[in-house]
């Protein structure tokens, strides 16, 4: 029991450190091109999946466009400056963090992982 409590405490500390972005060994990720995220970074780290899921239903089902929690918006800002993608290595924004926390990233099985500019440059090639 004591060990379990200690483990949970350590986990809590680890998460807190991750949220603060200060823990040693946390991934080094590409810097975003924009100045400010749509929410503060701590909120985004904890809830970006909820924001995306909420907005996707409104967009697909009701046709509400232009709201702030847009996956395409994330990509436009967080893509790597060279290849315009959020996937590709441990320093690419989405892949880097998802690999670090060992959470499967399903979005890009269907969604474009590159900026519009990068897609145009590639001319439809993968």
């Amino acid at each position, binding site marked *: 029991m004591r060990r379990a409590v200690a483990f949970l405490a350590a986990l809590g500390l680890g998460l807190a450190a991750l949220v603060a972005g200060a823990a040693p060994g946390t991934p080094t990720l590409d810097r975003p091109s924009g100045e400010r995220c749509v929410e503060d970074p701590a909120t985004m780290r904890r809830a970006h999946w909820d924001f995306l899921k909420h907005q*996707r*239903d*409104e967009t*697909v*089902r*009701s*046709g*509400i*466009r*232009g*709201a702030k929690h847009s996956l*395409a918006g994330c*990509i436009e800002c967080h893509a790597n400056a060279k290849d315009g993608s959020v996937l590709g290595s441990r320093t690419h924004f989405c892949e880097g963090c998802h690999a670090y926390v060992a959470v499967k990233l399903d979005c890009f*099985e*269907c*969604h*474009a992982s590159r900026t*519009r500019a990068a*897609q145009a440059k*590639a001319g*439809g*090639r*993968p």
Partner: protein
Amino acid sequence: MSAPSPGRRGFLGAAAGLAGAAIAPGVFLTEYAVAKAPGAPASKAVRWGLLVDATRCASGCDACVKACNTEHGLPEPKRPTDVQWIRKVELKDLRTGAALSAPVMCQHCAEPPCVDVCPTGASFKRADGIVMVDRHTCIGCRYCMMACPYKARSFVHEPVTGQKTDTPRGKGCVESCNLCVHRVDAGGTPACVESCASAGHHALVFGDLNDPDSEISKRIRAVATTQLRADLRTDNGVRYRGI
């Protein structure tokens, strides 16, 4: 139940006055939506439709198909099982030799059989009449493909790479023409319509069937058009002239 209080009735009356011309209490002339405001949901007042004028459609021209593939990042279909959102159909009356060609795509039915059969609710009709697949909920069972009388839907059999931002698509889901919903929401017209016009044929007209002043409404009022398999009473949003 007691009758509504005069206050409430008065309020409703005032609201009706604001909302539009009342012909009789509770009966209104239909209102027609203008361009969708940013952030506004698709409006029930709109019914998007397409007129395919087979008398103008050129045999052998596949500009609409090419434009669709480019717009949505679809690969060139090589096998019968490959994805196809729009196809050119060439018809010939063997007795008279009269030939015609026209594109066939999702007919955006008012009563879509694909929506009726979908077990998860992934196949749905938007308020403005566009029939789509919500890939987040699609389990790839393909009932909708069997239900569709127009053979409009395709299943993605293989992993997809290089998707376009506005057309997310992946293996294991059914998909079909969505009337270029991203363009329509931005106030534009579908890619096929644009390409047909720039190819000089003007065989496709896109617009709001509910708006009597739209080009499509004027055209279908002036010339005889028909819906494919009108006997099924699916009330298609896509109409054909000259077939």
